[in-house]
């Protein structure tokens, strides 16, 4: 036990120690709000002078692992690229393989894929809102978002068997299994719940607005030159969406809008997320209405042969996933396994150049807010 006098002495010594108010400051990888990712900050007082991203804590080497495995095994690996939207990565991988193998998949499978991926986008955007709220100390938002997200996870469990990881549900050749009985009504009910959640998100909490408006501004020219895509780029004022610009599956048959905002601050990114949830609900409703009957997988993939050759060549497939442009560049030399797989995760640009740029000159208290407003996922950066 130290005596009171000792503590006073230590305090006096400490008060003479700091001569300068410049110091290094680490955000992550052990910060509860950072995920498996760190940022090294140089700070003067409360202001950040420079930031250096420090990724790699979640690097699992998927690109290399995929070279050693068959396409149907890789479908299972592709879920794990991003925890928060595994179905979207499933689809990117399946599409790339189908383009390499020249497969035309059944219509019903295409519609179900769109429904699943849009539901996945909604739950991912709910997480986005939740963690952004937590990042600025608005814990109620976090709980509401994760509560409503669970309705969608229950749907995933019914359809794919897994709440978070679908275990290659969307696989090359179609889908592992068809919708279970009466799932359409359940989806409709969940969409009503999402409508309810959107009302919560719309509330203009004055503290929330004060913490998000005019902070973390990313101008359009910087957004483009730093490689931003998806909602981050749309919040800075460029109308673009791969679902419309380079359509895949059956997106060209649905009627939906691309939300765009000019400001480029945290608030505008947050509003883009909210509007995209509404658009996704619209797409799911249309897809459910037009859902055709029939098979969901090509006959030869029902019991796939292990020595199925992949045609020689290379393709690049990219999709509009919740975070931006998610792509895969797959090369084959005619063997049964892909020769090389390159995964392009949207967070790669958002968490290295964009984040480093936005943190310069920001306040320490705004670091979590700026970080989460970019809709980041350390898993798809590290792969």
């Amino acid at each position: 036990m130290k005596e009171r006098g000792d503590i006073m002495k230590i305090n006096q010594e400490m008060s003479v120690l700091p001569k300068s108010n410049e110091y290094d400051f680490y955000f992550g990888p052990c910060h509860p709000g950072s995920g498996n990712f760190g940022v090294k900050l140089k700070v003067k007082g409360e202001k950040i002078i420079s930031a250096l991203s420090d990724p790699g804590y979640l690097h699992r080497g998927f690109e290399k692992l995929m070279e050693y495995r068959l396409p149907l095994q890789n479908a299972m690996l592709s879920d794990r690229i991003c925890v928060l939207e595994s179905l979207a990565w499933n689809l990117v991988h399946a599409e790339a393989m189908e383009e390499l193998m020249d497969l035309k998949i059944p219509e019903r499978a295409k519609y179900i894929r769109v429904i699943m991926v849009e539901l996945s986008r909604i739950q991912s955007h709910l997480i986005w809102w939740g963690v952004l709220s937590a990042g600025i100390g608005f814990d109620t938002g976090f709980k509401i978002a994760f509560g409503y997200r669970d309705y969608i996870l229950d749907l995933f469990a019914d359809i794919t068997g897994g709440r978070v990881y679908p275990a290659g549900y969307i696989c090359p050749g179609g889908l592992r299994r068809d919708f279970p009985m009466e799932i359409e009504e359940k989806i409709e009910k969940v969409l009503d719940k999402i409508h309810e959640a959107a009302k919560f998100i719309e509330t203009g909490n004055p503290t929330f607005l004060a913490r998000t408006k005019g902070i973390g501004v990313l101008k359009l020219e910087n957004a483009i030159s730093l490689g931003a895509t998806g909602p981050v780029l749309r919040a800075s004022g460029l109308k673009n969406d791969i679902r419309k610009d380079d359509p895949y599956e059956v997106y060209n048959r649905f009627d939906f809008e691309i939300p765009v905002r000019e400001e480029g601050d945290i608030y505008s990114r947050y509003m883009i997320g909210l509007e995209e949830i509404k658009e996704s609900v619209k797409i799911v409703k249309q897809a459910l209405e037009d859902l055709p009957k029939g098979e969901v997988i090509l006959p030869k993939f029902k019991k796939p042969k292990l020595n199925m050759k992949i045609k020689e060549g290379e393709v690049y497939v990219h999709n509009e996933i919740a975070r931006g442009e998610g792509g895969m560049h797959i090369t084959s030399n005619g063997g049964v396994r892909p020769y090389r797989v390159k995964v392009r995760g949207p967070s790669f640009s958002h968490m290295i150049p964009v984040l480093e740029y936005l943190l310069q000159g920001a306040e320490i208290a705004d670091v979590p807010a700026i970080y989460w407003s970019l809709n980041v996922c350390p898993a798809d950066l590290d792969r």
Partner: protein
Amino acid sequence: MTSDFKGEKIILEKIKREFGHKGIIQRAHRIWISIDKEELLDWAKWLKQEGFIHLSAISVSDWIEERKYKIAYLLWSFKDNVLLVLTAKIDRENPVVDSIIPVWGNNAQSHERENWEFFGINFKGNSNLIPLFTENWQGPPPFRKDFNWQEYVRDKYYNKENERERGYYED
């Protein structure tokens, strides 16, 4: 969906006029062009002027039998909605290529860092080549085809004397 590749053909014609070079239209929204690595910066500057302002990624594959690396720059044009893949071959023994930071800035910088780390390619003009993912990595660049990670893990992390880990040494 039938497409006559109108936009893609216009771009190819412009390329032919500028460089006298032929590209391939793989499908709608996809053009593939292979060039010599010495021409890279001229192409990069011209393509950016023509609207390919978004650098999606830089992807490298290791063709060990040819003793070459194939580097692919994935470029997207928001104006024409076309993805152009610019590929070049690099000697595997002495992998050097010009950096495209003067054209695509900081975004290119981090993509180059990744490929320097995983394949050991030197990007001439990129002064900030420091590892992104690995920490204190002593082995060869890990994504090369001649790097066998299974062997590496076995030698580095398992003990043959340990009864429970002996199984990893039996093939």
